[in-house]
């Protein structure tokens, strides 16, 4: 089967065409070594193996997308290339074309988005363009599927004829100077292309700038010959942007959208109706279903000893339930994330938030994953994938746990409610904002010291708005869901079982129902001295606080229930020690599910260890400072509480 590569600028509709031709059967994976997606599919009608390359503006090997495209052409040697061009951006698109023309490869150009061009008064003469470029030019509509026959014909013809690379630079007076530098490459496969690429990469800025100017000069001249410009009208995207990018309304609208998204996924009372939101509804539904299932299975084994039943229903079913219960909220989140991304709105948020995010030292696209962290860290960790640079993703994932998740709330409610009758609300606010500030500080530190410390340039095309395609959306959801279940869920299940065993087995490895005899409390007692300086693990019952923290590793909600089970609850604390306890709870290592999600995304044990240390260290220092300095301050201002 002939291999057909789809190439083109980002947002030109290349992927839409790809989907239309391959029928949405694409196999999606990653290019080796990078997180850039690779899509392969078969155009059954014409028998081509299609590969969808990432959108690129040129072939400079500086971003992973460009390297991937280059690598594909040189190493995988496709039989023919199809460049999809957005008619409304012809001048810019031809830049890439002049580079592709330098390849010894059959090439066909497909002009897409003709309807949009018409609305802007632009009419392009495909025949003239074809003559100038020396390759077939076909008009298509990626979404409706128009032009497929002509496309197939053009591809067949191009393949038959074959093609040798030509460069537009040869027409310029600079060429005699450039030719000697390119000469050594000629004669080898893709010699002309690689030779000129080498030229562009020279350290003297002049070559690159000059060559770029030549390419654009050609493009402009070409456009003048083939484009007829009529009356242009403001298109829908611009009209919508009048609202979404409004200097005053833009950010509030964004915040509203985020609040809505958040509400849909995490809220316990959907728009005040008292019904849970879709995210929570399905989550509870799954937990319920799994519990029922577990009970049904248990009935087949009435002779099992008590601990066996407990192991099964609490350990396994509980573990599975927990792992799977995140799925609806993850899917809900990814649905909205993908929807906003595909529709083109996310680009607007990057534009609107460039300044505020600069203060925090993180990319504007971190806003959504971080906001999600207020609900649950697990989908937040996964959501960080939508960010562009790996470095930003790493930093974001590290600070997500500082954004106090929903499961941490019960503890605050308990302690604030009983020990801080006045100023309760203020304390809540301080805790949440404190988390954000700690995250921001770490983001700045990590960016400067550990990571490169250089700001990524913010130069971004504003894509058009369009309704995301339902089928691609569903495909993404399916892929993400499957991936989560296979990878993360298994880890979460495994860890939950381990923790259950640790809290139900004695040191002699006998089962026990008394958790104070378990391995977990043994460990708890052992490490209590570590927590004593923080104020809340002192005295005889100090180990209970420690055990509660340890149980928090299984689930943050468990901290409260452990305190209850071990006896004591809020009596174990003074207001000050409660405050430091909550600070520790806020900042320390998140639950096993979040840690697993982190590991799943980072894929490195080393980074996992670094993260665990960072979280633990931060929590410890913060709690220490709160307890001791707080203590001094309170002594001076006694009566505040």
């Amino acid at each position: 089967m002939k291999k057909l590569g789809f190439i083109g600028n980002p947002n030109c509709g290349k992927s839409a065409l790809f989907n239309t031709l391959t029928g949405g059967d694409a196999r999606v994976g990653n290019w080796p070594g990078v997180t850039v997606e690779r899509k392969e599919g078969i155009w059954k009608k014409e028998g081509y193996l299609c590969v969808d390359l990432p959108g690129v503006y040129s072939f400079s090997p500086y971003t992973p997308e460009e390297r991937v495209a280059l690598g594909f052409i040189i190493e995988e040697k496709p039989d023919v290339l199809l460049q999809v061009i957005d008619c409304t951006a012809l001048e810019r698109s031809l830049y890439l074309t002049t580079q592709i023309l330098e390849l010894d490869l059959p090439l066909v150009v497909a002009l897409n988005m003709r309807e949009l061009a018409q609305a802007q008064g632009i009419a392009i003469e495909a025949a003239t363009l074809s003559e100038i470029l020396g390759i077939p030019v076909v008009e298509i509509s990626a979404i409706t599927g128009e032009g497929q026959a002509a496309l197939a014909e053009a591809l067949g013809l191009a393949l038959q004829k074959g093609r040798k690379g030509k460069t537009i630079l040869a027409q310029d007076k600079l060429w005699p100077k450039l030719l000697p530098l390119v000469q050594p490459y000629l004669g080898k496969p893709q010699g002309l292309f690689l030779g000129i690429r080498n030229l562009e990469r020279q350290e003297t800025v002049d070559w690159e700038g000059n060559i770029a100017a030549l390419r654009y000069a050609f493009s402009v001249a070409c456009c003048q010959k083939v484009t007829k410009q009529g009356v242009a009208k403001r298109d829908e995207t611009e009209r919508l942007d009048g609202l979404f990018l409004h200097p005053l309304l833009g950010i509030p609208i964004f915040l509203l959208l985020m609040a809505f998204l958040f509400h849909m996924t995490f809220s316990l009372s959907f728009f005040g109706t008292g019904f849970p939101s879709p995210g929570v509804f399905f989550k509870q539904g799954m937990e319920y279903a799994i519990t029922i299932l577990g009970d049904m299975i248990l009935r087949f084994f009435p002779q099992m000893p008590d601990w066996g039943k407990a192991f099964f229903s609490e350990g396994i079913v509980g573990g599975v339930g927990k792992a799977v219960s995140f799925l609806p909220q993850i899917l809900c989140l990814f649905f909205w994330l993908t929807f906003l991304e595909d529709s083109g709105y996310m680009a607007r948020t990057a534009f609107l938030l460039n300044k505020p995010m600069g203060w925090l030292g993180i990319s504007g696209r971190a806003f959504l994953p971080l906001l999600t962290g207020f609900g649950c860290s697990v989908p937040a960790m996964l959501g960080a994938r939508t960010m562009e640079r790996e470095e930003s993703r790493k930093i974001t994932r590290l600070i997500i746990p500082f954004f106090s998740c929903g499961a941490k709330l019960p503890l605050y409610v308990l302690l604030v409610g009983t020990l801080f009758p006045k100023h309760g609300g203020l304390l809540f606010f301080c805790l949440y904002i404190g988390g954000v500030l700690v995250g921001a500080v770490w983001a700045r530190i990590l960016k400067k010291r550990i990571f490169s410390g250089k700001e990524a340039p913010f130069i971004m095309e504003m894509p058009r708005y369009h309704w995301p395609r339902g089928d691609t959306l569903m495909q993404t959801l399916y892929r993400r869901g499957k991936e989560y279940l296979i990878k993360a869920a298994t880890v979460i299940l495994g860890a939950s079982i381990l923790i259950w065993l640790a809290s139900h087995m004695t040191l002699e490895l006998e089962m026990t129902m008394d958790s104070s005899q378990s391995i977990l409390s043994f460990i708890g007692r052992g490490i209590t001295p570590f927590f004593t300086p923080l104020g809340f693990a002192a005295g005889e019952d100090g180990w209970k606080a420690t055990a509660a923290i340890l149980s928090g590793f299984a689930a943050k909600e468990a901290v409260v229930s452990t305190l209850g089970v071990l006896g004591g609850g809020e009596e174990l604390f003074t207001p000050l020690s409660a405050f430091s306890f909550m600070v520790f709870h806020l900042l320390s290592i998140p639950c096993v599910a979040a840690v697993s999600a982190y590991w799943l995304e980072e894929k490195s044990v080393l980074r996992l260890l670094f993260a665990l240390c960072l979280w633990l260290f931060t929590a410890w220092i913060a709690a220490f400072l709160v307890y001791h300095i707080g203590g001094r301050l309170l002594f001076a201002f006694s009566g505040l509480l």
Partner: protein
Amino acid sequence: MQTSLSGLRPKERAKVIGFSCEKAVLRRLLELGITKNTYLFCMRWAPLQGAIEVWVRGYRLAIGYEDAKGILIEKEGKQVEKIGLHWQSELRKERPF
């Protein structure tokens, strides 16, 4: 008068006359069509002056404030009264992009 892109106000047009930025940024600008003698039209600024949105070579491009400082321009002054229904045609009357 020579200034950088960070000083271009909405509805003003300018010509690019040079760059004072890192190679990485320059490359990106070049491949997106911002070369010497290119015309940029400022559509808006993001809140808090975080980034500028320009109309260049027929499409819309967002550039962060810091990166805009590295693009040296020569202003041509205000081109349209408001970005209304046919603003593109207004611009093209004088200078087809």
